[in-house]
């Protein structure tokens, strides 16, 4: 597995800064641990089986640097994240509210990545929905333990 996004496109001279596993891990840790106060293990685990992922949030960065970020989770974990953000139980939240929360997660990660790269780029709005069971093989895919559940963050540099 490539260790950084820039390694996947060694000839792309516009990608002067790399977003690799360490940066993704730090961004996720800042988000889940520091801001939301959720138990998060910043040490990525080997990504294997995505069959338990049911929902997905995606955001695109376009411009001098082009990339996509995906956050995948089971619906139960998405509800758990939303419950934390809303300060209530998942059972009291609608599907739209749960997906809104997951969309905001990928929005923060994508925005942070854009900030790290610091090039002339635009950040799309997050897109949320059902995970269709597959990510591009070239994506940098990292699994994290979030409060005892598996969360996947994937980055695909275009």
């Amino acid at each position, binding site marked *: 597995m490539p260790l950084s996004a820039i390694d996947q496109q060694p000839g792309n001279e516009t990608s002067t800064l790399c977003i690799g596993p360490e940066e993704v891990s730090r961004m996720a840790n800042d988000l889940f641990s*520091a*801001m*939301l106060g959720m138990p998060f293990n910043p040490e990525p685990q080997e990504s294997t089986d995505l069959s338990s992922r049911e929902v997905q949030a995606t955001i695109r960065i376009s411009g001098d640097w082009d990339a996509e970020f995906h956050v995948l989770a089971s619906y139960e974990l998405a509800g758990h994240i939303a419950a934390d953000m809303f300060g209530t139980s998942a059972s009291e939240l609608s599907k739209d509210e749960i997906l809104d*929360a997951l969309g905001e997660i990928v929005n923060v990660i994508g925005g942070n990545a*854009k900030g790290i790269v610091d090039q002339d780029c635009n950040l799309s709005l997050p897109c949320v929905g059902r995970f269709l069971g597959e990510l591009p093989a070239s994506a940098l895919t990292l699994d994290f333990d979030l409060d005892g559940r598996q969360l996947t963050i994937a980055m695909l540099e275009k």
Partner: protein
Amino acid sequence: MRILIVDHSKAMRMVVRRTLEQAGFGDYEMIEASSGVEAFSMINSESPDLVLSDWNMPQMKGIQLLEKVRKSGSKVRFGFITSQSNSVTARTATETGADFLLTKPFTVDSMRAVLGPVLV
């Protein structure tokens, strides 16, 4: 003191509101808008003392909201809460008339450090 929280994400508005309370600003009245359009209307009708706006929103971006607010002659204190904190964002925000920029993810401490001087 009235604070207007502007974010298209209801989840994030809840996180901002809770963090404001934890940072010691719970006594302030907090009102919310889910879009730049709604926020502009509320700035005129509700006269907030401070606007905390997301940057990346549909229809009207946060920076477009600020431009419209300043063009209208309003001098309301205005800050961005954004994950896109880089040199371009900071310069654009400052040049357009923003008072501060708070980076997402934020913490109780960073919220207090940025807003404390603004809310005195």
